[in-house]
């Protein structure tokens, strides 16, 4: 009898392992960014501020990750020693190709988000949602959900969806929770287009 029960238990354990360890590993596809970028160097050594690249336009839109023209302002030619910069100048600036960044926080096309109203009106700091990435020295791998195609940052790092920080996860519930907390109306059209 006891022995028979073991078989049941075995099945249970195997499945739990598959579900909690193997599945999450298989679910996400890791991709390296086309180019390494150090926020650290740019704001410490080059003494740039966030707004140099991530700025608002007069029409209320946010630049997000700047286009090549921004990089070109300094990197028309190689000015440093890093191989990554060499790559930037030779493969992108000189050939005038936009850098195909993999955007961690990229929302799907059906979602509308106004940085202006959150930053200018609600005075939310950038790292509240994006985390303190301003001082990082390198870019982590981009993880793509093989089924939904979303960046892992949207669903949050934990498969359970439990947030470890305010910037861990950017899906609808995260937005809704914050809106509810500050009783901002949660109507669909606020965030959908």
């Amino acid at each position, binding site marked *: 009898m006891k022995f028979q029960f073991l078989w049941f238990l075995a099945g249970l354990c195997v499945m739990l392992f598959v579900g909690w360890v193997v599945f999450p590993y298989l679910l996400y596809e890791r991709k390296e960014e086309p180019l390494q970028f150090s926020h650290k160097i740019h704001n410490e050594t080059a003494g740039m501020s966030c707004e140099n690249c991530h700025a608002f336009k007069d029409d*209320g839109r946010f630049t997000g990750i700047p286009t090549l023209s921004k990089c070109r302002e300094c990197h028309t030619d190689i000015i440093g020693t890093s191989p990554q910069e060499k790559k930037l100048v030779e493969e992108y600036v000189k050939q005038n190709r936009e850098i195909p960044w993999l955007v961690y926080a990229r929302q799907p096309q059906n979602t509308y988000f106004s940085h*202006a*109203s959150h930053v200018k009106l609600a005075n939310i700091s950038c790292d509240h949602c994006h985390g303190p990435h301003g001082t990082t020295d390198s870019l982590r791998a981009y993880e793509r959900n093989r089924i939904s195609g979303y960046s892992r940052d949207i669903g949050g790092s934990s498969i359970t969806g439990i947030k470890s920080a305010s910037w861990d996860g950017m899906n609808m519930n995260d937005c809704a929770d914050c809106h509810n907390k500050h009783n901002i*109306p949660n109507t669909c059209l606020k965030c*959908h*287009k």
Partner: protein
Amino acid sequence: MESNQNKPRYGMVIDLDRCNGCGNCTLACAVENNIPPAQPEENERTGITWMRVYKVDNDKPYPENRAVYLPLTCHQCDHHTPCESVCPQKAVEYDTETGIVAQIPVRCLGCRYCMTACPYHARYFNWWDPEWLKGMETTLNPDVSTRMRGVVEKCNFCHGRLQAARAKAAVEGRRAIADSEYIPACAESCPTKAIYFGNLADANSEVSQLAKDKYSFRLLEQLGTEPKVYFRSEQPWVHQKMDTKLSAAAKENAHG
């Protein structure tokens, strides 16, 4: 539902005597809202035209036959919004901020119950996956998402334009937008200025003035859904055909 005090309630007044049925509104709408061109098999009943111009005539024989062109779009019903209450999964929502009735295609499961509920037939189903000719997909409007087959869609007064206007205001530190900052594509594109758009909650706005005009009427007003799209015509037969208050009053006078 919270009170809509001093919140805008966007609406339209369409002057039928000015409409020449050119179809600019339909096209401007399609361009603005990324509505794909027709599939070969598509027809008048399966096509997608958020803003649709009907030819309405007085049922008289030639040469007494008269007609007006009637641009028909979602009426953004204010009260007991028929489509909203029927959606099983909240893909339809009355936006208390603006009075606009939202349709969220990504939430929609395509049961089409809302379409049977809508008295104006202003809701359209994606019977096909959207397809654009090669290269044409580069002309899509980034402020509006494309839809997929099997979902319902409809007019939302070019909400993308409202969001853009709000963002602009936000950058300038303003919380509210001026009426002049927001106008849907159809109204903007009308060459004869037949479509007036604005805030009905503001008693002084051009639209609310026109809506009060004795020649203005609403379709199926008796249903009591308080649509926010008004029509206007000084031709008596139009009022008879649509049996409006005005024609009813006229009948009264005729009888005694």
